[in-house]
């Protein structure tokens, strides 16, 4: 039971991840960091996007590993094809 | 002739008073203890012919007093009349199991109490 709910948790995370990623990278959220900067300084938006991008990849790595540990589920084994 | 001495252990003053009155009238000498501690102290100092013990006592309960009494060599055979206000069979059984000699339910008839004490003290 615990294993099943744990697995469900990672599946939920896997399903939520792309929406969270889109939310972080799309306006209006991304606009918060799109502030003007002066020549000769790192624009904050550059740091923001690359940091979010790296974070998404790390979470995806973690989720993929965990979901992978639990795919030995008979429900997930696809059936044979038809005609 | 020395009177037969009975110890009454009861915390309700009115009941103590009525019990001592009827027992004295019946020719017994009575002494009073209002809780278990006092009762045990008196039992160890003095020899009594019978003990009338209320089960609902403040502090040490009547059951515990009875248990202690029965555990002491000198008091093993002391006749103990247990008084209870609850009158439930379970209480009676429990009291008998740990060595109560007789069992009287409140409210009691004075005559019954006197008869019981007489019978147990051989008077």
């Amino acid at each position, binding site marked *: 039971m615990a294993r099943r709910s744990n697995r469900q948790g990672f599946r939920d995370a*896997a399903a939520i991840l*792309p929406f969270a990623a889109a939310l972080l990278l799309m306006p209006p959220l991304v606009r918060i960091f*799109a502030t003007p900067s002066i020549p000769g300084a*790192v*624009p904050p938006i550059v740091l923001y996007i690359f940091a979010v991008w790296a974070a998404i*990849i790390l*979470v995806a790595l973690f989720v993929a590993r965990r979901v992978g540990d639990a795919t030995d589920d008979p429900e997930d084994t696809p059936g044979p094809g038809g005609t | 002739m020395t009177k037969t001495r009975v110890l009454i252990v009861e915390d309700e003053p009115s009941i103590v008073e009525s019990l001592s009155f009827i027992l004295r009238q019946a020719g017994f000498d009575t002494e009073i203890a*209002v809780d278990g501690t006092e009762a045990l102290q008196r039992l160890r100092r003095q020899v009594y012919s019978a003990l009338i013990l209320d089960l609902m006592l*403040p502090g040490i309960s009547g059951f515990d007093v009875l248990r202690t009494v029965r555990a002491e060599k000198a008091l093993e055979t002391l006749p103990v009349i247990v008084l209870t206000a609850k009158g439930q069979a379970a209480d009676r059984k429990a009291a008998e199991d740990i060595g109560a000699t007789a069992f009287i339910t409140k409210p009691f008839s004075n005559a019954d109490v006197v008869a019981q004490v007489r019978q147990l003290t051989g008077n």
Partner: protein
Amino acid sequence: MLPVNLVVLVCLAYVAILFGVAFAGDRRARKDPTGWLSSPLVYTLSISIYCSSWTFFGSVGSAAKNGLEFLTIYLGPTIVFVGWWIFLRKLVTIGRIHHTTSIADFISARFGKSPALGALITILTLVAITPYIALQLKAITASFQVTTYPAGALVAASQRLEPDFVVAFWLAAGLCLFSIMFGVRNIDVNERHHGVIAAIAVEALVKLVAFLAVGIWVFATLSNAPDVMFRNAPVSLLNPEQGFGSRWVALCFLAGAAVICLPRQFQVTVVENSSDEQIRTASWMFPFYLFLMNLFVIPIAMAGLNYLPAGSDPDLFVLTLPMTNGQETIGLLAFIGGFSSATSMVIVSSIALSTMISNHIVMPVAMRFSLVPTGSGQSARNFILTARRMSIVFIIFLGFIYFWVSGTSDALASIGLISFCGLIQPLPSLVAGLYWQRATHRGALAGLAAGFLVWGYTLFLPSFEGAFLMSADVIENGPFGLTWLKPYALFGQDAYDPLVHALLWSMTVNIVLLVAVSLWREPTPLTRFQATLFIDVFRRQTERERGVIRRTARVADLRQIAGRILGPEETVRLFYLDGVGERAVIASDELLSLVETRLAAHVGAATARTLVSQVVTSETISVEELKRLAGEAEQIRAYSAELERKSRQVEATAAELAAANERLREIDVQKDEFLSQVSHEVRTPMTAIRSFSEILLTNRDLDEARKLHFLGIIQSESFRLTRLLDGILDLNVTEPGEQAWDMTVFDPEVAVEHAIATCEPLARAAGVRIRRGRRARHALVLGSQDRLAQVFINLISNAIKHNPNANPEVVVSSSIRANVTYEAKVADNGPGVAPMDRESIFRKFVRGAKAQQGGVGLGLAISRQIAERFGGELCIFDSKAGGAEFVVRLPLCTRDGAGSGHSTAV
């Protein structure tokens, strides 16, 4: 500059290595099909053909011109890949199970194996991809020319170079050769192109290493500090707010859709996939590849702006920066990287498209006009192979011709995104096919065709700026002067950028038609059946489900068809080793399905079905059975969702029940205790009354004083009994649900005074002093004055009775708290109540452990209930004098009885 011969030599050597890798890969895969060539790493690297030369050269150019916009092209795919669990997993699994050969085959198979749908997608894809291939040829040609320009790369990059079509021609020829040699060795598309994939993976590594090398060199020597790097940053980067509007969202969507729908992406992601493990790893590794690929784009772009003269083509910064700084080795590496990214894209695109052309256009046409040779076993296979090879040459040279015709114009520069927008038109059909049972092939056809037409009209044709089909006048003013038909502003919608405008319109029209037409007509039985197979791919499919289609055919005919396409070896295996054997004359459904599946892996589902249908003598699709099955699946899904919901409910109910049971048990125990206590409390005074009555009855001669004393005891015990019964009745009254009291607004101080007065005699008797502390002024509460007085009498008399102190004292004080609460305290200097007993003393019949005097143990329980009944509370603390302190708190109210709140402030 670098010598032409050297560059050519390096290119040739590089290509030779690729040939070697492809050759070795093919050989290795034949020996061990599950070896490292099927590893998730190789799979992920092959997906990275997404990064074509447009990425390699174009990202830096875009960053120098448009700031961060180039990132959308990689963020979209990142979102799609990290979301593999929702979409890609299903797509890839279906593709693997149904031996899909291309995106056209996938969609046509889902929508009832419709040949028209497959052909339409093939043609659309061909139109949209040609400019894209031309772009790759242009990129390699330009980079070659810049690298080898005699006057130096910088000069070359800052002037308009006439494209060298000779280079482009030989390049195209080389690409054809490679694609044909390794891409079309066998016709079973599903047998996976291990050699090509191995070569592509190597190319993916080469372009990554090359780009990182340039990036690190730039970062280390030219742009190592922010103040240097961003010295000449473009406005789009310094003031980026404009960059995050509709165009940003549209480009992310476009790129996300493209990474699924581009023929080459579908080929490497779906067709070449062999396990779940691959896609799971790619879900993070591919985004990581993209991340690395983009890490140094901004430093390179900024360095280009800082160190190269104004007017240099930013699209070639990757090359010109190292070349002008004397780093010719890095320059050559960059050239090879660009070469890698362009060639791998062209090779895979042409292989994917050639399969589509041969399966969805050449084969159906050839079969209709009986052009497929029917002679020996090998001839049909050769026909297909030839068709594919010709297709490759056709596709690549179409790109070359496009480049030749448009090479001097600027039209190519922006063609990448325009091409994307056309190539993603199959997306709505693809998504609907995976999730929407009701989607039909008519809907898909209508949506696709309309979406594509809108794309052509609003984006593709106008991009030629009047040079092709559409005149400049039409672009400017609309056809026939109809301004609401202006390509860049349909229905007057001119607020958008042309790309966003075209994407919005084409997708809207596409989706609306797909949905509307699908709803308009019932799906065909075969569409319905295929929809069930696709949508329920993660559910175990039963034998019965596959028996929906009943067909019969003569075994001999079937064997002939199979032999022509599959070759003698596989046919023998299929027909004899599987035990279907010689004996049968009529082929079973299973055999027919098996043969069709095998054929589909070679020529696509639609063509396979047409082939098999040629020899089928009778065919029935049990529509009723099919509907029942579809319905059943639907029901099962609904049922299991319902079950899950119910089981959650049941769990919650069970927990509630358990809690309720527990509570009931507690109440039951309390009830037993209560009854037992009541019995005890009633019997005690009864005993005294009975005993003394008997004494008086049997002792008539008692002296008067004694008699009176005993009668006094009887009377006081009777009072005690009455009080006890009153208390029990009070308890009942205060329990919820009992009769309401007469609630009035009154000053609680009156109740306090009354209580003190009542207790005074008792206090005097016990030698206790009652002291009045602070008083609350003008307090008003809602409740019953008598009941409140009862509470205080209870508290004060308790304090008097349970106080063995030598100098006993009770202090009563009251005050108003925060303008909303009336608070009265009754404190004594007695022994107090141990913390562990503080809650239990409020329970019925519980007295303090040392208490002996009077009372029945109901007082505090009743008092608390009364206080709560008035919306207040009763609790106990330590008093300052060391004893117990009982605190009554009641909400204040106004004279008219309205609730507390701000009443006293008025």
